[in-house]
């Protein structure tokens, strides 16, 4: 802000004294607040007149329905609030998977577009243009109906050693069954994975001398595997495979659709940012004798990252919001379960929509706050 003051009149739209500026800002804020309060009051009084007051107590009533896929332990006898949590974790799951895959894929595609090889450059370009210029919903439905529904029926599934099965119902993998000590051992293992690097850093010995400390988590892992009471192996039973863990095609289709679409945009961001790094930087690196890959990794990418992060934030936020497209292909995410099933059963349309907006707003604000901190770390620091 200090710099603002020193700029001459052509930077400010209306040159005015600081006191005046403060006054006008106050007026604008007051007007905005008045409008907001008026909206709120208007909505409340209209709802009251139609005996439709906002009431969130339905959240504690039993939900009654079951979830076809979940990573929580939601049961039909749990409350609507628990259904919200279960559906929300499905949304977070596919968003997290999507963000990671989109980043890796986008980086790869972006770097490929800058490659010297004609084939790599154009293959990446063609893919990016194809994905970027078709609707995302269409792509998700394509993955679901056009690709994953061509998989064989349950009885003709592709099996690997009788343990892994792939069919139209999803990918079935064995699942470890916890024994009496499994939980405690898993916690100890996690703790040791955190403590060992810390100890090695702060112990006064030479790092090489403390390498044996890694034996602790290794031993814990072996004991953990031994503590399992067994494995749940998927087997064909009745209509479908029972036992094991399943990754349903709805999740895969949504994951693929979200990450590929975002990856195309990320690839363009990567390309633009890398090309935005001054040519002299690269030439300087070459003249120091660095080979192309170290040049990219050590000189160009760190500088490109500064330009990239704010744009990536947009892509990530878009991806999180687009996860609601999963409702079209039966992926039980928050819009389908909460704004669909729960809204219908409870009839509380306005309350459900308010909660849904609150949830998406907080997730995206949190995500952008996190990325803003990251951005601050990478930003050019002028000293």
């Amino acid at each position: 802000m200090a710099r603002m003051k020193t700029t001459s009149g052509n930077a400010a739209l209306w040159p005015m004294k600081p006191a005046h500026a403060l006054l006008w800002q106050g007026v604008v804020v007051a007007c905005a607040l008045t409008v907001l309060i008026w909206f709120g009051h208007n909505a409340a009084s209209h709802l009251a007149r139609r005996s439709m007051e906002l009431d969130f107590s339905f959240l504690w009533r039993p939900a009654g329905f079951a979830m076809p896929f979940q990573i929580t332990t939601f049961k039909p006898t749990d409350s609507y609030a628990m259904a919200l949590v279960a559906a929300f974790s499905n949304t977070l799951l596919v968003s997290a998977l999507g963000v990671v895959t989109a980043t890796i894929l986008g980086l790869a595609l972006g770097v490929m577009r800058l490659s010297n090889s004609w084939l790599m450059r154009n293959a990446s370009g063609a893919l990016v243009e194809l994905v970027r210029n078709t609707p995302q919903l269409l792509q998700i439905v394509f993955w679901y109906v056009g690709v994953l529904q061509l998989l064989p029926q349950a009885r003709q599934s592709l099996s690997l050693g009788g343990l892994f099965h792939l069919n139209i119902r999803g990918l079935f993998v064995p699942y470890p069954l916890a024994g009496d000590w499994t939980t405690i051992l898993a916690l100890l293992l996690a703790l040791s994975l955190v403590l060992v690097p810390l100890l090695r850093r702060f112990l006064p010995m030479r790092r090489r001398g403390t390498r044996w400390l890694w034996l602790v988590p290794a031993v814990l892992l072996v004991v953990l595997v031994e503590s399992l009471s067994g494995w749940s192996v998927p087997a064909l039973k009745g209509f479908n495979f029972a036992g094991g863990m399943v990754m349903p095609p709805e999740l895969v289709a949504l994951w693929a659709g979200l990450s590929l679409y975002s990856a195309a945009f990320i690839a363009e961001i990567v390309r633009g940012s890398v090309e935005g790094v001054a040519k002299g930087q690269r030439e300087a690196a070459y003249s120091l004798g660095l080979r192309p890959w170290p040049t990219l990794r050590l000189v160009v990418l760190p500088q490109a990252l500064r330009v990239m992060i704010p744009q990536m934030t947009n892509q990530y936020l878009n991806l999180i919001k687009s996860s609601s497209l999963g409702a079209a292909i039966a992926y039980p995410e928050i819009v389908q379960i909460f704004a669909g099933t729960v809204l219908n059963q409870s009839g509380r349309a306005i309350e459900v929509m308010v909660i849904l907006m609150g949830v998406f707003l907080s997730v995206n604000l949190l995500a952008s706050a996190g990325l803003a901190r990251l951005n601050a770390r990478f930003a050019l620091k002028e000293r």
Partner: protein
Amino acid sequence: MTRSDRTLFRTILSALGAALLGTAASAQTLPAPGPTVEAIKKRGELVCGVDSGIPGFAYQDSSGAWKGFDVDYCQALAAAVLGDPKKVKYVGTTAKVRFTVLQSGEIDVLIRDSTLTFSRDIGLGLTEVGVNFYAGQGFMVRKSLNVKTAAELNGATICMLTGATLELNIADFARSKGTKIDSLLFEKSEEAFAAAEAGRCDGYSDDTGSLAAARSTMKVPNDWIIMPEVISKEPLGIHTRDGDYRWSDIVFWVDTALKTAEEFGITKANVDEKKKSEDPFVRRLLGLEGDFGKQLGIDNEGFYKAIKAVGSYGEIYDAHFGPKALGLPRGLNNLWSQGGLHYPLPFR
């Protein structure tokens, strides 16, 4: 008369009127027909909330005209209140917004294959006027599965549309039988049918009325069977807002009139001829005797006009679900005298 004099005069008059109403309610003073009817008459059209598109109940034909079982009900109401079945503005509502649209006053009445339930009546401040279609949730499965009853569906995955209480009914059913059935919820029927066709799920579930329509759209309809049993009660009917009981009364008695017409063999074609009937029930229904229509605050020939416009209940059913249409047997939707559940209250 000065302005203040006039006000005084009016006050006295209305006080007198109120006193008269209070003492002489039994003397059949005609009360005001209620704010909803007044609004409809002033507007010159009935705003009727129907389904945004489902074969049988409500859909738009190629020329954009609304057709269907629920649509005929809207027309009957418009004929009774406004004297013209064409004076209806149809509002296609999705499952998500239907009750909010009614609560907010955008529509006068909701006739949209919606199940009457406790929570909608009490929790949403609505009045459940009457059942116009008895349905139940059923299953359509592949013949090759060799499943005879729904209880054998343990471990099966069922595709269905989101926006109703289908998944709740399935979960209830599975819990009551101690079995497990997975529900895959789709936004649109195209994707749901494609998933069922591809074998992603073992069957498809919906209300019996819609299942018949769904089966007809499968690639090979004969590969699929609709299981005989239903797992839920779905009394589909008419919703109005709480707070205008006069309007709810009108809607209730128009529905009753259509069913009574079938009971007495009155049809769209013979309704004029039936005016010669000596049967006191027919004469009261058609407004030839008594002032039933007037007492409701509509034209005394209101019921006659409704029947003249759309026919009896049986005719409406046959037009949209009969053998020439979707081919759904009448079953529970017969009159009580034919083994069904429709038992219209008597006009006396």
